[in-house]
């Protein structure tokens, strides 16, 4: 009799446990959405339009609350550290970060983010032996460099390169691709300069030998040169480069830029939010880096075809 009573109590306990589980599931659905902080330099800049649109779309699909930090230029790891700390106090579950230039950025990110997952959306980290361990969502910069090189090797010309930070893995990959494409051609890289803070780049290149083509790997500088060309204040070498904004495409459309590679910001944004959401929802999930698409546009054959229209829709 006692044994039977015991059995009943165990069954009742198990049933109650299950009932509690389902009640918990009912209330579990009302839990707050995961919060993701996005740290981009000059967050209001037009070049992030597609990226942010992709992020917003993925955030809506995955029920994630996204906070885009309002930033000015982030010129080094120290500035980025401040933003990370500020957001950590803001009860953030994960970070999507455009890494600041600097040798200490990677260590700073590991230290500051601590147990909060973070994902990089372009590899601006310093070149080290091998690749960085942090998962990164970015286009194949080497392929982009190779495409630019292919366009430059069609005729004999001197090439000058302008980039933002020498030690960036992305910049190194682009230059490497460029070199590979130019190898065996009559075109030669004459010089390569890296932008410094507060530096007038137009004045800086005047000190270099005259180049027939400029490869601008810094989207901001490319826009600057393109705009000057549009206004007639820049004359000289043909402009090639990597741009993210609609403005750079319009500058190419207007004939001010000769060749342009546009990484798919929408895809970078969308994939990054999707990936970090998986990590936040499942602690055991190991985040993966992705190679994203990019659009290549040449001045001579530019036309508003369906493919380009679809690509530009992400800027709308």
């Amino acid at each position, binding site marked *: 009799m006692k044994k039977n009573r015991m059995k*009943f109590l165990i069954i009742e306990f198990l049933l*109650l446990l*299950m009932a509690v589980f389902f009640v918990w599931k009912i209330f579990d659905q009302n839990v707050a959405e995961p919060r993701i902080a996005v740290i981009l330099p000059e967050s209001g800049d037009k070049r992030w339009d597609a990226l942010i649109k992709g992020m917003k779309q993925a955030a809506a699909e995955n029920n994630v609350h996204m906070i885009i930090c309002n930033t000015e230029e982030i010129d080094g790891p120290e500035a980025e550290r401040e933003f990370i700390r500020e957001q950590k106090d803001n009860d953030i579950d994960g970070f999507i970060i455009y890494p600041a230039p600097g040798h200490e950025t990677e260590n700073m990110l590991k230290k500051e983010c601590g147990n909060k997952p973070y994902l990089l959306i372009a590899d601006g980290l310093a070149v080290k032996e091998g690749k960085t361990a942090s998962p990164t969502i970015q286009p194949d910069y080497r392929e982009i460099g190779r495409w630019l090189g292919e366009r430059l090797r069609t005729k004999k010309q001197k090439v000058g390169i302008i980039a933002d930070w020498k030690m960036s893995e992305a910049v190194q990959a682009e230059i490497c691709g460029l070199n590979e494409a130019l190898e065996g051609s009559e075109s030669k890289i004459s010089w390569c300069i890296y932008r410094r803070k507060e530096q007038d780049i137009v004045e800086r290149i005047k000190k270099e030998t005259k180049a027939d083509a400029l490869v601008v790997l810094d989207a901001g500088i490319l826009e600057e040169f393109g705009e000057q060309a549009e206004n007639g204040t820049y004359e000289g070498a043909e402009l090639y480069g990597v741009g993210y904004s609609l403005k750079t495409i319009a500058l190419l459309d207007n004939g001010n830029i000769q060749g342009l590679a546009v990484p798919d910001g*929408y895809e970078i944004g969308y994939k990054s939010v999707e990936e970090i959401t998986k990590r936040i929802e499942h602690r055991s999930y190991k985040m993966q880096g992705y190679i994203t698409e990019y659009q290549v546009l040449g001045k001579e054959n530019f036309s508003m075809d369906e493919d380009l229209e*679809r690509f*530009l829709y992400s800027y709308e």
Partner: protein
Amino acid sequence: MKDRKRKPDSRKNIALNIQSIILSVLMAISLVTIIVMGLLLYHRFKLALEKTAVDNTEATVEATVDRLNADLLDIRQILNGANYNIVQQFDISSREFSEQFSLLYETNSDKIQSLALYDPKGNLIASEPVAAEKKNVKVQTQEWYKNAEDAIENIHFSTPHIQELFEDGSYRYQWVVSLSRYVDVNKGETPETGILLLDMKYSVIRDVMKQINDCSGGIYYYLTSQDGEMIYHPRGTELNRGLFEENSLDAAKYEDGTYEIRSGGQNETVIVGSVAYTGWKMIGVVPESVQAANYKNFRYYVFATILVLLVMLLEGNQLVSRKISKPIRELDASVKAHEAGGKPDIYIGGSSEIRHLGHSVQKSYEQIEKLMDEIIRQQNERRKSELDALQSQINPHFLYNTLESITWMVEAQENEAAVRMISELAKLLRVSLSRGKTIIPIKDELQHSRSYMNIQLARYKERFKTEFRIEEEIENCCIVKLVIQPILENAIYYGVGNMDEDDGGMIIVSGKKKDEDILITIEDNGMGMREEVLENILTDNSKVPKHGSGVGVINVHSRIRLMFGEEYGLSIESEPDEGTRVTIRIPAIPYTPENAEALELQKYIQRRPGG
């Protein structure tokens, strides 16, 4: 007869007590009822949710179609206004034309991106806002131009596209929906034709669609052309990149109404509404996953409620089953206690049926007890009468035989021997009578045996010898009277009686205690018995030769067993020409008046453990 192995009774293993049966039945009924009710409730709720979602979507689609109709009607009216009130009214080179053209644009600049008039060669005649044409633009190759040329009576709506006509200093691309129509142009005296183009801002459609999609809770709305070409989709960018799939081609083929289709690997309900004039289809999609998310929450409520109800019912049913079965269990326990030998009162309580049952069982037990007492009394009486009958068989034989011997002695003038004989007979009769008692001390029985043997020795002229080897401690134990003498009688008749004096006939009577029993052995070295006689001597009265007293050992055996039980009695060993040994086994019961009386009344044996 076949050797049949009996299977274990499987029913025994699943035998349940009444409480378990009642509980099981109640639980089964409760469980089935709750589950059925839960499922019905869930199904009803699911249908209601589906209906609500579909109804809401239908209402939204209808309202949005109305709004789009109104907006597009406005745009068409602007285009018609430009055609009938400006292009056909004024000379295109006149100032009024430019002013009216500009005024129309300015008035509607929130809706239209540009207004332009082209001649049949594709040259720009007029445009608002005034802007430089893009280099290398060939309007004749653009869809809106070709459509206007192909069907001159109609206003043509293009799908959204980037405007590729004018320079834009803002470094932006404008998304527009182009409305074009073939128009008659008033150019001085000569009537000419042209293509009137109105580029409607895509935001006119996008804002309406975005508004309904922003707070739709998983349900979404999109707009396609009648060919299934996407005009607006909330996940348009994902569609362009293959990150999302939409079965717009199928959906666009449907007439207005509600349909179930399969898209992107899941079922969805689509509500189709047509936008007037353009043939565009406004489609509201209720994905199965959205419905499922709504059901999921309710499913948890149903599960939690069922489980809580089950726990409560389990406890309640247990209480009810315990209450119902309690009188039966009490009755069962009292019956079991009764069966175990106790004499508790049979439980009488609970409902009237159980009370009646209790009363019946109680009455039955009382009757059984009465009957048992009666049977025991009758059995005792029967035993007594059997014993009496057996003893009454003995007495006449003894008397007859002994008197016959005395007669022979008197006839033979052996007076002393006759006197001794009579004296021994007197002792023998005294023991035989024993005041009518059946149980006597062993020493009296031995005295009886000695008297008997003395008489027989006298009769048989001392041709054999007798020896008594009795342990003293057994002399004061109980024995059924007259059990040794018949055996001695047989030992004489079948053993040593016919032997010569020289043959050394010998009868030894020995008695000893072994464990809790007494063994009295009567051993002779006479002719012994054949095996067949030995086999039947204790079982078949009819086969025992009727010599001597006429009382077979079987009678002695029966009397001992009747008095002391089946495990007691005689055992006989015999070898032809070797002799016979008869052993009497009786329990060692000290002779006291109480024990003797108890044995007489057959109560002593019943009281003994295992008796």
